[in-house]
């Protein structure tokens, strides 16, 4: 039953417009892979290539060991959940869930039990007789998930499944999805989202997409703590991206020498230093930088300060301050050397 997904140099083009460029990606059996990227990055196209709704111009899509590139969608055995639920409005909840079982010619006697099982898994068993229009958005999405799970797919495709829900419901559903995956450890999940929190929370690995290409792929921790590119750094979590000149064991930024691990980056080149805003502290400390406050945002539990350091805007997320600085105040901020990451990709001489 356990079957992964493999993209083998998959390209998709509409006319001259390439919307997915030679994607190589493997989702291991039982793994949750998030495809994270802004709209137009090709992430949904990749998902639709697995489902069979777009035909790759070149490359192959494999589910398990099966090359499904030329198979029509109805022969791929995939569960799919989309943003707008797409429940069949004229069918009761139970008939929506039974739809796939009937289409796959499951024995009639077996269907009611399978429907109940799927609905219980998503906590919707008591709504079996309702029509979709009688349910809230969150409930409809649970039914949609139950409908996808009822056919016991080896692969589950989730296309922005929580985007239509409000913030509170979304975090509840995230926990729910995580629980479902624990209960169904064999199901490989491809999860398309533009929301970094969903990706960080749910995914075993995240594939970061931009401009029709795979930019980066790794565990959430790797991508968050050790991003390789500016795009990953800014899209997975928040980031200060500072243009620096690399020295030996330190970098220079705005006339200040900052002690950061430079790894194997050659001395003398221009590079970008990534510092997470919540790792920036107020006051004196290691790697201190002084600038004037250009904006203060109170966010309840935190204050976000924007500090102008020699023309560069530095973001700092600080635990709520008793007396936040006023606009234009001179402040000093700092960060620990180990909290800074020198982005190794895209480093160029004199860049």
């Amino acid at each position, binding site marked *: 039953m356990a079957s992964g997904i493999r993209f083998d140099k998959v390209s998709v083009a509409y006319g001259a417009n390439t919307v997915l460029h030679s994607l190589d990606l493997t989702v291991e059996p039982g793994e949750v892979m998030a495809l994270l990227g802004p709209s137009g990055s090709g992430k949904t196209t990749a998902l639709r290539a697995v489902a069979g709704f777009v035909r790759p111009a070149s490359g192959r899509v494999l589910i398990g060991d099966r090359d499904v590139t030329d198979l029509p*969608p109805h022969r791929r055995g995939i569960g799919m959940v989309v943003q707008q639920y797409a429940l069949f409005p004229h069918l009761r909840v139970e008939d929506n869930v039974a739809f796939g079982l009937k289409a796959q010619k499951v024995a009639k006697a077996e269907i009611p039990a399978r429907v109940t099982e799927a609905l219980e898994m998503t906590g919707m068993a008591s709504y079996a007789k309702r029509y979709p229009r009688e349910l809230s958005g969150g409930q409809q999405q649970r039914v949609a998930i139950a409908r*996808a799970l009822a*056919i016991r797919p080896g692969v589950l495709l989730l296309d922005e499944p929580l985007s239509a829900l409000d913030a509170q419901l979304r975090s509840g559903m995230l926990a729910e999805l995580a629980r479902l995956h624990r209960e169904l450890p064999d199901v490989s999940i491809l999860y398309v989202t533009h929301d970094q929190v969903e990706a960080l929370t749910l995914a075993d690995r995240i594939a970061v997409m931009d401009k029709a290409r795979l930019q980066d792929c790794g565990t959430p921790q790797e991508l968050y703590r050790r991003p390789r590119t500016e795009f990953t750094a800014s899209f997975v979590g928040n980031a200060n991206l500072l243009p620096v000149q690399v020295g030996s064991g330190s970098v220079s930024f705005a006339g200040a020498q900052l002690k950061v691990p430079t790894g194997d980056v050659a001395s003398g080149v221009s590079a970008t230093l990534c510092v997470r805003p919540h790792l920036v502290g107020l006051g004196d400390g290691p790697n201190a930088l002084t600038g004037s406050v250009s904006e203060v945002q109170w966010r309840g539990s935190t204050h976000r300060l924007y500090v102008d350091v020699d023309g560069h805007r530095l973001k700092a997320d600080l635990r709520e301050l008793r007396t936040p600085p006023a606009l234009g105040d001179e402040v000093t901020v700092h960060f620990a050397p180990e909290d800074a990451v020198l982005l190794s990709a895209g480093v160029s001489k004199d860049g």
Partner: protein
Amino acid sequence: MASATLSAPVNKAANPRKGMPKWVWALPPVAVLALVFLYPLALVVQQSVQPDTGGTSLKPYADVFASSAFREALGTTVWLALGATVGCLVLGFALALVIAFVPFPGGKAVAKFIDVFLSFPSFLITLALLFVYGSVGMANGLWTDVTGAASGPFQFLTTPWGVLLAEITYFTPFVMRPLLAAFSQIETAQLEVASSLGAKPARIIRQVILPEALPALAAGGSLVLVMCLNEFGIVLFTGAKGVTTLPMLVYSKAILESDYPGACVVAVVNVLISVGLYGLYRVVSRRAGA
């Protein structure tokens, strides 16, 4: 709906200030309606109970109902209308499916052409069919040229089948229009999810598209049914002498036989059937939740 209920009290409050009760505004349209529609209709009903022999009686009804010509016409009208409606629904559903869900170059143009087609007069279609299948039409001409026979094999145009063909050809777009509108409302995501769940196209059409298009089918079908019941031009233009429908009967009684009471009786029956079917449609469609 909400805005209507909200605005109602405002209107009530505003009316006394204007000093004009609301129903006054209804008078002109009602008057026009009465003059051009209800009054002639009343005249027809009145005429139908006034036989030429004088007085008021239901004798014209008894006479008409007793005549075999009327019963034949009634039968012909109903089966032609039902047949044409079924044909339009089947053909219209199939064509609308292709236009809506099978992307092909020029699909948009075809959809636009259907709008134009609706504006054509009905006899135009019959005329076109005459050119193609008429006794001296293209098809028969080709046949006689090739085989040297005296007449071609296509002689169905003057039979009820010819009328049926012409009515289906002409009225199918009336079914397609609401269907295309209904199809455009169906989320593509529903169809995609259905196929990912393992449903083949036939099952998707049967279990997803058809149920969601039922109200549109009912609307288009009932429209076509009523229009077929009252169709006159098509029957006249096919020159099918053996095919007498109720409107044809009205025409021949009134114009050819000068039997006005008889014509009016048939007309009243025709109106009652139309209104009755329309009422039935409203009841059914409301129950279906359309």
